[in-house]
């Protein structure tokens, strides 16, 4: 027996349920990243957020970006962040004082920003297509045509930027030499 198109009692399609599930995971894990007391758990919840976002990218028909997200964000950046957490963890980072003194204005600013986004999204006519299901996967041909056509200069600059960032990161994280350590250690 084939599955029904619309789930009974709820009136939502299967892709709706998948979207709600993934976006719930994204938002809950993002809250855990921001509000968590333990910074290692924050780093692990960041991985969960990025993974669920990769699922939403697949729903949007951009499988190539989802693959890049898993490779670059989950595979590289999250591991880098976890290494930095373990290198900088000390008794001087107290558990209870995770927030600065400006937490109330920060919360106000974030809520105002969310309201502003809601107003802008609700009052704008985007002229967007409405699909009966999730958007169809487009493959990589239009992405390649955009990336190697009008955005070729940005693509090349990004590669130079990554090279510069790698060299700069190596230089910044290098151990200072023994004769300079006394000056820098103050």
């Amino acid at each position, binding site marked *: 027996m084939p599955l029904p*198109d619309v789930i009974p009692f709820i*009136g939502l*399609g299967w892709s*709706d349920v998948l*979207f*709600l599930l993934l976006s719930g995971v*994204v*938002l809950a894990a*993002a809250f855990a*990243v*921001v509000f968590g007391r333990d910074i290692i758990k924050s*780093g692990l919840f960041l991985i969960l957020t990025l993974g669920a*976002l990769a699922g*939403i*990218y697949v729903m*949007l028909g*951009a499988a*190539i*970006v989802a693959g*890049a997200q898993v490779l*670059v*964000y989950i595979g*590289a*950046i999250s591991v*880098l*962040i976890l290494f*930095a957490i373990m*290198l*900088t963890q000390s008794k*001087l*980072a107290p558990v209870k004082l*995770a*927030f*600065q003194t400006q*937490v109330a204005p*920060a919360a106000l*600013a*974030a809520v105002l*920003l*969310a309201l502003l*986004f*809601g107003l802008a*999204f609700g009052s704008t006519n*985007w002229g*967007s*297509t*409405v*699909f009966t299901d*999730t*958007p169809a996967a487009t493959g990589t041909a*239009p*992405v390649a045509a*955009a990336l190697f056509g009008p955005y070729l200069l940005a693509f090349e600059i*990004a*590669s130079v*930027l*990554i090279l*510069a960032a790698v060299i*700069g990161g190596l230089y*910044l994280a290098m151990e200072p030499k023994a004769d300079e350590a006394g000056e820098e250690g103050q």
Partner: protein
Amino acid sequence: MSQIAGHLEPYLVLSGMLFAIGSFGFLARRNAISMLMSIELMLNAVNLAALAFGAFIPSLAGQGAAFALLIIAVAAAEATVGLAIVIAIFRNRKTPLVDEYDTMRQ
């Protein structure tokens, strides 16, 4: 039939909420690495919005994914340099908390 996943607005609302959460974390957390993680959240929110526009607006097909790939590349460079700076400061000041980096205020 789909009432949510086939429309543009739910993706934009999710992106806006994720950006707001990330901006709160950036403004409110004390730990420098937590602030960097919040920046990653905000960059991902922008990626989601770009991909949603690329998928739902026909004249932008392909450009959303190209933008998202470029943003991912720049985010990787930003994370490299940012974490290297945090580790270099930590080596001198022995703390990752940004409100204790107050040498220039004294």
